[in-house]
């Protein structure tokens, strides 16, 4: 199922944010990373349903951290991109690159 999974734009953004955060990728940190890098203010509900879907597709894995007092004794769930997830992002990016090849829009914009 994960081998040829097609990724939506937001799924790619989430996967890339998790990759950037390394072993510190949990809900709040992922939202912060997306906000800082893209300027997008992601709704928590959209993020959690996307993470859930990516995990079901086998593109991310998760593990529970230790409960902390500032979170009311609730644990963090840390996410990591699986090999299939990394491959899916790479494939999606290659598709974008191929579509952009030969187009003048980028050159005009930066001229």
């Amino acid at each position, binding site marked *: 199922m994960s081998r040829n999974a097609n990724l939506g734009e937001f799924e790619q953004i989430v996967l890339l944010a998790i990759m950037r955060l390394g072993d510190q990728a*949990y809900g709040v940190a992922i*939202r912060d990373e997306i906000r800082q890098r893209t300027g997008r203010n992601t*709704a*928590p509900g959209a993020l*959690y349903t996307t993470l859930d879907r990516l995990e079901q597709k086998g593109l991310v894995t998760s593990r529970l951290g230790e409960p902390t007092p500032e*979170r009311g*004794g*609730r*644990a963090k769930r840390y996410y990591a991109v699986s090999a299939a997830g990394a491959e899916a992002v790479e494939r999606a990016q290659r598709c974008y690159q191929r579509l952009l090849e030969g187009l003048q829009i980028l050159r005009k914009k930066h001229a």
Partner: protein
Amino acid sequence: MHKALIAHGVLALTSPPDRAETMAGDLAEEAEARGRVWFAAALAGVSFAMFFQAFGSARGRALKLLGLGLVVWFGCYVAARAAGALLGLQPFVIDTRNVADLSFGTLLYLGVLLMIASFATGLVLGRREAVRGMSPVMPLAVFWATTAVAGLCADLAAGTPTWQCTLLYVCGLPLLYIAPLLAGGMLARPALSPGLGGPG
């Protein structure tokens, strides 16, 4: 601390227990910087998103639970009315066409019966298997909430909203239908609420 507890309790209704715990922690952590309004909005947003995700992935089962819930609720309500009539509290048939004509005692009686029927329905539904981590009482709870919103909008659109009907939609449905239903559902499934009195 209490924000995490509230979020955990609400999210446990729409998500698997371990997910509810970590999402509640995230919301509580972020709420420290963003405040109560953000917390309430985010909690509502996450709850709706998780509900629709679970509903969308198991629509057939969720609709079956809704149908079962309505049948059980109606059965419980009729049984409670019959028991009340047998005990001589109120007649079995009460003309409720004009709510304004009913005495306070009759209204209180009907309200208590509705709460009992909803709580009993929660106890029955709560023992069923969860729908992708979502509590089995949620389809009926969302149905009642939708009914309240639709009823209020229809009343306002008609331009003749009575205070009795407005009170029923704004307070009656949440207090008499939804809250007892959720309480019954939680009581029937303590294992779904780790950190909330369940074994986790």
